């Protein structure tokens, strides 16, 4: 496992220059609570047909900061991004919608249904 | 397509694979992981099983409350909740005297009904346990 630290501003450029869609695939986005209102965000990649080659890009952010979206480069990141919005309460560019539904959400099945 | 056709036809004259369940009981293998058995005489009250149990289905709770002497391990009583148990047999592996003090049978728990107060009874025990810690 190789860990590469990047700054929040350069994360998009770093991933863009690194990511070749025929060689790497995104495993997931991961969050890690470090201290009071500080957290680490990780982008975990793995290489096709290679022995255990995993690259982790990570950056440390304040909880109030917004992390950039990488959906335009890696379409499958959308679902991890939406999950991280809900799990850590961070903001992700363009993914203001979370993944999980509140109990009183209008999108819940059978919401607005009264018997 | 024709093989399934023929198979469906020959199946007509075969004994069904499934059994008439509630009437015909299911036979469980000897090594099936089922309820945990407990032998009080052999138990040395090391409480290893209680610590090892992932869901916390084994509790040693003092008989008298509050206990006169907290060090008196013999004042503890073994409680086991078969409905919380995940039958992983971690406790049996942790037990210093397996087969005598603690063992795993291949029996399934009875279906619990409301009168058993499975949950409420257990919550009271958990509360007691917490108070004495």
């Amino acid at each position, binding site marked *: 496992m190789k860990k590469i630290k990047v700054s929040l501003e350069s994360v998009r450029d770093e991933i863009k220059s690194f990511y070749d869609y025929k060689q790497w695939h995104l495993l997931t986005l991961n969050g890690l609570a470090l201290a009071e209102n500080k957290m680490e965000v990780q982008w975990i990649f793995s290489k096709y047909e290679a022995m255990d080659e995993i690259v982790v890009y990570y950056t440390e952010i304040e909880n109030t900061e917004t992390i950039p979206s990488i959906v335009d480069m890696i379409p499958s990141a959308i679902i991890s991004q939406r999950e991280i919005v809900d799990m850590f309460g961070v903001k992700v560019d363009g993914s203001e919608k979370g993944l999980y539904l509140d109990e009183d959400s209008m999108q819940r099945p059978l919401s607005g249904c009264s018997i | *397509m*024709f093989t*399934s*056709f023929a198979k*469906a*036809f020959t*199946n*007509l004259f*075969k004994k*069904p*694979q*499934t*059994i*008439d369940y509630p009437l015909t009981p299911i036979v469980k293998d000897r090594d099936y992981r089922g309820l945990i058995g407990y032998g009080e005489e052999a138990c040395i009250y090391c409480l290893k099983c209680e610590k090892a149990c992932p869901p916390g289905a084994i509790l040693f709770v003092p008989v008298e409350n509050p206990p006169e002497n907290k060090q008196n391990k013999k004042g503890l009583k073994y409680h086991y909740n078969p409905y919380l148990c995940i039958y992983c047999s971690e406790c049996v592996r942790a037990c210093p005297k397996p087969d005598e003090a603690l063992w795993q049978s291949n029996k399934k728990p009875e279906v619990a009904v409301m009168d058993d107060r499975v949950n409420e009874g257990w919550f009271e025990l958990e509360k007691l346990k917490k108070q004495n810690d």
Partner: protein
Amino acid sequence: MIESIFIIIAPIIGGLLYGFERVVRARMQNRQGPPLLQPFYDMFKLIDKQAFIVNPYHTILGVMHFITLWIVVAFIIMGQNLLYVIFLHLLSSIFLILAGFSVKSVYSHIGSNRELLAALAYEPILIMMAVGFFMVNGSFDIAVIREHGASIVSLFLLFLAYLMVIPIKLKKSPFDATEAHQEIVGGVEIEFSGIFFEFLYMAKWLEYIFVYLLLMLFAGDNILLGIGLFIGVFLLVNLVDNATARIKMKHLITIVLGLGLTLGICNLIGLAYV
């Protein structure tokens, strides 16, 4: 007298037939299956359930579907005109289709659409069948057809075409796209509930009676042949049900309309000129 008793107990016979078919199907799939009287247990359960009325027309049309179908069965048993029977049966299908369109559910709409398309595919075959019977027996009356000898030899191609109609009507693979449990959750049935669904459920049993009574017309006055036909086709339909997947509406129409019409027309032309 016997006829009226038959008419009254027709749904019960249909239910027994349906229950028996479920047992046979379970055995074909090598499993225990439900008891013979399961349809009736289901019925009692449905009666106990709370019934929701989505809108009155929907419910009324559903009940009308059942009543019309019962009348259809009654007409066949009484030996009425075959053309009347077929058109009245079409009417009962139309009631069901309208019921499906009268609610908001998407599944119900798709179900109605498919039901309509299926009716388009099998109705010409039924009509050609009536024409075929007329050409052989000189009458559309079922009573007359029953008095004549077996017409299965001269109407063999139509008989084959009719075999394709049976799975559509009984909602069996490969032609069960109109109901399509896994896709549209029963289609038109979806918005019926409780006792009103029971009417639809009983209509299904009557559908069994209708289909097999029409089939027995091919045997004419030969009752043994009629029973033989019934058993053979019953087994065949269930075996095919157990050997095929559900095909799409598009394929259903191509196959049933294309093949069925060809078979039917060949048979009629043959009858007219040979």
